[in-house]
């Protein structure tokens, strides 16, 4: 990475018999020269980057208004970036060879890909929250419904309570079906096995390919048109279930696969049945990962718009019964708000989107807090608890042992 030039080469002794070169090391003690940071860049490199950046900004600003017809912030950034790469190649090639130039340019390109991606996604999140900040500070936004508020009403009237409740009811129904079915299927894939399990795995993989709108269309045609004849929260929950089930199965499958085989074998060696092994060894070991799988599935399910669009129906009224009448959810409410040209409705739309985004973020943070580590890896607190428990066990065994020895000594004489 950084070329090293030795200014004062240490004296060398050539062993004439074997032809190897032995570097004479000072025997007086450790070398106390300043330690060089392996990952630090030199002053040269820093100035290359700074110089190229300055040149790029100058070129972009100069070209911008006068020479190129490109306008707008995005155009400026593109011109500046291209001239930055050009200037940087020029500066690096003054001092280094082709290999080094390629390395530097590739590094810059990789870093800029990351900056663009994280920047764009952070910008999307910030933009949503900022545009939503008009609606968010009003407490009525979370406690009222849109029943009595029209498009022209100010933001101090109306809210999205009905959408929040609808989302919670729908995701709860979906979870009630998905968690047992998904995790049991994952257990079946891993612990029972056989040709049928392979078939199930293939089918579950195929199910992840199902476009969300097609899932919605299926529920619309199969449940709403044939059975219930009206849109309802239950139908929406079914559509969400069809979308979430493969996600949960795949994620749990991966987690269960990570449970070490020797734990299972130890359990079998102690004479347990398969069921006991699954219940007492496999599932507890994978618990945090399974919780993560479920929460990530929930985060995906709660943000699904298109299946809900076809199945739940739009309403401005709070509806607590999932089996009759339309029941709106957060993403669909966003969609409904921004269809209106009124600025207040659009502000409400962004407020709802920001609420949804924050909800997903919270779910994700909970998932990270619970399942940030692999199966069997414990947090320091859990580790202390486990070692305290095993210490207790050891003490108990020792007590019993010494009691037994005392008894045998009493009996012996």
């Amino acid at each position, binding site marked *: 990475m950084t070329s090293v030039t030795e200014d004062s080469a240490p004296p060398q002794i050539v062993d004439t018999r074997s032809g190897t070169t032995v570097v004479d090391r000072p025997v007086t003690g450790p070398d106390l020269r300043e330690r060089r940071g392996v990952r630090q860049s030199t002053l040269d490199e820093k100035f290359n980057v700074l110089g190229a950046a300055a040149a790029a900004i100058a070129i972009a600003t100069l070209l911008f208004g006068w020479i*190129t017809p490109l306008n*707008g912030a*995005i155009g400026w950034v593109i011109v500046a970036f291209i001239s930055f790469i050009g200037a940087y190649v020029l500066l690096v090639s003054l001092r280094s060879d082709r290999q080094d130039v*390629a*390395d530097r340019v*590739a*590094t810059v*390109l*990789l*870093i*800029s*890909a*990351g900056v663009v*991606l*994280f920047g764009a*996604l952070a910008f*999307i*999140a910030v*933009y949503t929250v900022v*545009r939503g900040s008009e609606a968010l500070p009003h407490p009525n936004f979370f406690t009222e419904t849109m029943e009595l508020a029209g498009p022209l009403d100010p933001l101090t009237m109306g809210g999205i309570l009905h959408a929040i409740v609808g989302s919670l009811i729908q995701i709860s129904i979906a979870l009630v079906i998905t968690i*047992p079915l998904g995790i*049991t*299927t994952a257990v*079946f*894939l891993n*612990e029972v096995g056989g040709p*049928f*399990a392979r078939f*199930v795995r293939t*089918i*579950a*993989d*195929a*199910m992840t*390919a*199902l*476009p969300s*709108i*097609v*899932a919605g*269309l299926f529920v619309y*045609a*199969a449940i709403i048109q044939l059975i219930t004849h009206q849109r309802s929260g239950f139908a929406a929950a079914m559509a969400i279930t069809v979308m979430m*089930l493969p996600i949960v199965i795949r994620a749990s499958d991966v987690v269960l696969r990570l449970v070490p085989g020797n734990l299972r074998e130890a359990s079998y060696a102690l004479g347990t049945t*398969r*069921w*006991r092994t699954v219940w007492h060894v496999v599932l507890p070991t994978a618990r945090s990962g399974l919780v993560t799988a479920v929460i*990530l599935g929930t985060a995906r399910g709660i*943000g699904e718009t*298109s299946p809900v669009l*076809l199945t739940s129906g739009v309403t401005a009224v709070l509806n607590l019964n999932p089996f009759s009448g339309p029941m709106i959810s957060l*993403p669909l409410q*966003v*969609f409904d708000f*921004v269809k209106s040209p009124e600025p207040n409705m*659009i502000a409400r739309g962004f407020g709802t*989107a920001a609420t949804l*985004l924050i909800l*997903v973020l919270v779910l*994700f943070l909970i998932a990270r807090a619970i399942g940030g580590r692999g199966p069997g890896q414990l947090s320091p607190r859990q580790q202390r608890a486990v070692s305290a428990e095993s210490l207790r066990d050891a003490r108990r065994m020792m007590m019993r042992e010494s009691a037994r020895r005392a008894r045998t000594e009493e009996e012996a004489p």
Partner: protein
Amino acid sequence: MTEVTAPPPVTTQPPKKRSLVARRSAQDTVFQSVAYTAGATTVGIMLAVGLFLSLRAGDALKVAGISFLFEQEWSPQTQTFGIAAVLFGTVTIAIIAMCVGVPLALGTALLLSEIVRGRLRSFLVSLVDLMAAVPSIVFGLWGVFFLQSAVIPVSKWISTYFGWIPIFAVTDASGNALTEASAFTSSAFIAGIVVGLMVVPTQTSVMREAFSQAPVGEREGAFALGATRWGMIRTVVLPFGRGGIIGGTMLGLGRALGETIAVYLIISPIFTINWEVLRTGTNSVSALIALRYGEASEFALSALMAAGLVLFLITLVINFTASSIVARSRSGAESG
């Protein structure tokens, strides 16, 4: 503790051979049948979706026949309908999304596996996972309210200077170049950018996982031979992670093809094949379904089902190809 027991008295009878197969306990029988049922239910749901779609789509397909694939119009009332235009739009948007997404995903995945380290790396890795969970409606809002107006100058510039390449030209019916902003607002290009950003996190995490499994020995070997970091990436990491790159790309492609809401919000639907990707007006299968399901009659719904079925079959083929490529690659099945 260790107690030496006397050896058992030698019996004259030879020991009976014990069967290696244990009899299943009642608990296990119940457990296995429950697990079996769960698996069968999952398969049942999936088969129900597939069968229902195919059966209902059959009505429309019988009427339309092979012209379903080549007809551009969509009017089931007059029995002339086909998915040529919407499928073309879907594929255009997905290709643009890949052009935007794959370089970003590849670069970010390499950045995360090779350059960034320590705390920052694990933070960014979980940030990528978080981004994959951001609802598509949020991307759609951003695309409509911010990106549309911000991209128009860029589109205009591309069409002015690269208009000699047919797909970048923006012309009206008689072939004159258009310059007013309304000609650029709801193009496949803008929808493609938004969908591309949406699928990048998925692609990034698959690729990063493959790259991070590149064996340390080979990396160090490359360094020991004097390679620069980029040289090492080019000769060790990229060949090793090829399966992950292809698999991640195709996984993202599958999602891009099925994306509905963001596309629906951005595009203005038309039912002709539009080669000029920068010009307003495109369509996609999922947007068509979202647009037309409400007023659809029994037969029109069946036509929409047929369109959905085609989309599903395409994403299915892409997904299976992706997972078999990932599984056969050196970086292994774990990164799927």
